[in-house]
């Protein structure tokens, strides 16, 4: 547990809405764990980030991925499927963070082995609280595999 608290955790946010990127950044800034957030706009960018392709040559390996479902070019479902197929990243926890409450999306996400599914709350305070509890859960409660960069 200490290993997470002792260093800055890396979070990758895959989100095309700049408003949500900013809100998430704000919420995490006030969190207890020292963290670094990288944001990309769609699935193609996310996979390039993970594979350190092109402009992402020096990208850090994320400890946690926050993934929206409805994204341009390559959506969250496809991205999740590819992450799970890649032996390099298949162990990175993925949290689906989306506005969709559709049962179809929920079931499909878990089938694709999402670690959890969260609906973005409408209310600002609620949203902030949820982002912080994601951070709290994944970086102070849960035990993650040791980093291997």
């Amino acid at each position, binding site marked *: 547990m200490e290993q997470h608290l002792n260093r800055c955790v890396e979070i990758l946010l895959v989100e095309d*809405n700049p*408003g*949500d990127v900013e809100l998430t950044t704000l919420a995490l800034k006030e969190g207890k764990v020292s963290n670094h957030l990288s944001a990309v706009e769609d699935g193609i960018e996310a996979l390039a980030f993970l594979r350190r392709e092109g402009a992402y040559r020096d990208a850090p390996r994320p400890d946690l991925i926050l993934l929206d479902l409805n994204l341009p070019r390559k959506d969250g479902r496809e991205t999740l499927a590819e992450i799970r197929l890649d032996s390099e990243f298949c162990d990175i926890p993925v949290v689906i963070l989306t*506005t*969709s409450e559709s049962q179809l999306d929920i079931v499909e996400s878990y089938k694709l082995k999402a670690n959890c599914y969260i609906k*973005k709350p*409408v209310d*600002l305070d609620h*949203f902030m609280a949820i982002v912080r509890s994601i951070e709290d859960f994944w970086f102070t409660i849960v035990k993650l595999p040791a980093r291997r960069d």
Partner: protein
Amino acid sequence: MSYASTRELLSTRDWLRHSELVLRRIDEASSNLLKVDSAVRGYAIKGQTAYLATLERDGYLAQQAVSEAKNLTVDRPSLTTKLARLESMVKDRLSLVRQYIQVRKAKGLAAAAVLHKTEVTLKIREQITELEDSCRNQEQGVLAGREQRASASLRAAMVSFWSSTVAGLFLLGGFYLIAAKLLVAQRQLHLAEGRRANLAEDERDRFFSLSLDLLCISNADGYFKRVSPAFTRTLGWSVDQMLTRPFLDFVHPDDKVATKAEVDRQVQTGEEVLQFENRYSHLDGSWRTLSWRSVPQPGGMMYATARDVTENKRIARALDDKNRDLEQFAHVASHDLQEPLRMVASFMQLLEKKYKGQLDEQADRWIHHAVDGATRMQSLIQDLLTYSRLGSQDNECCACKMEEVIARSLQNLQLVVSESLADITMGPMPAVTGDKIQLISLFQNLIGNAIKYRGGSPPNIHISAERDGSDWLFSVRDNGIGIDPQFAERIFVIFQRLHTRKAYPGTGIGLALCKRIVERHGGCIRMESELGHGSIFLFNLPASDKEVGSNGAAFE
């Protein structure tokens, strides 16, 4: 004398039988010729050689029947002559038929059709019918004469009895009398029955032709034995076309297996088919959906009626599609609208949080209005989503104990109930068939409203139920501010409000939801009120026991 009349009496009885035999043979010939005709048509259309065998057999039977009739009438030369003529015409007809078959074989349907309609063919058919009728009439005349004679010989027998002075003949006379009486009574009964049967048959035939539904009798061999004219009206095929092909030929390829299975099941179990649907081909190449009901008979025969439900099905499907589209639209629209709105509201709230007091008072007020507007719109969209989900999500219906339902809705309202010091009572509660979650929401909205629109004194709410046929009629009565009766309908319309948001906050979704829930349970909801004197909401829900009980009988 007596001996002679007795003999006369006995032979009369034989003759009656004899006449009936002649008539029966003529009928047989006639029906076999009809079968020949339909086999010819069958062959003409499908070209299957199986028809030729039937044709030859029925043709032979027709000829046989005519010649037997002729042999039976040797005692009446005029009828014999007529039947001899009939015999030769039947022969001619059959040879024409064979000729037609040859042409159809060699040159195809079109060439054969010409031959089929030639004057000779038509004339021969016509003459055969005429001759048959004439023979029939003549023999019926003979039959009537014989009946008269039968009565006469009865009288003769009576006379012989009374005039007999020989005591030894007493017994014999008694025997004659009884025999004669029996014979006549039997004959009269037979005639009356025949007339009645004819009349009933006639009536049945009329209904058969008149019926809008498709009526038919089918045989174990998989052919229709008889179909009503409604078949032709609905499916375009002529009656003959329907009779000369196995009925499965007309069934949609995808429905054949199910149809066959249903027919087999019916034949095996002897059970009625109460509702079975399949698609039948129409002459124009389209498919019509028929809904069947049929009763099996021993030996594989079936009486069946069908109704063309194609149009109903199409309309129902179109309506379903429309509704689904509409629900989907509401869902998608509200979901996608929510996304940008979340941004407006969130950043306005952020602005309010971070900069309140740093700008001037007016800026604070403006920010407040913007946040308020966005939040309100969010609730509207949320409500719209809830409303549209009522249509798209069908939870399973089960027997719901209403006491539990109401208790659950009161639990959800706990805070307002205790804050308002509401006094809520209820009568004995039954069980209804419904979606428990929706029913909880229904009561929660109604009780919530009763508390929300309370007058000066603490709310007093009473819930009761009484039996109304197969339903329960529920009422939720309060002592609140009441509603002007002129708005009795408007209150159930989505987002319609009777008060300012300042006086009573809310979007105006509650009663629209209630209405939709009740209607989805097959009931209706209404309101009775007088301004300032409280209101009563009345609605019915289906009882979980369907028996019509007296009030209170089904309370638990």
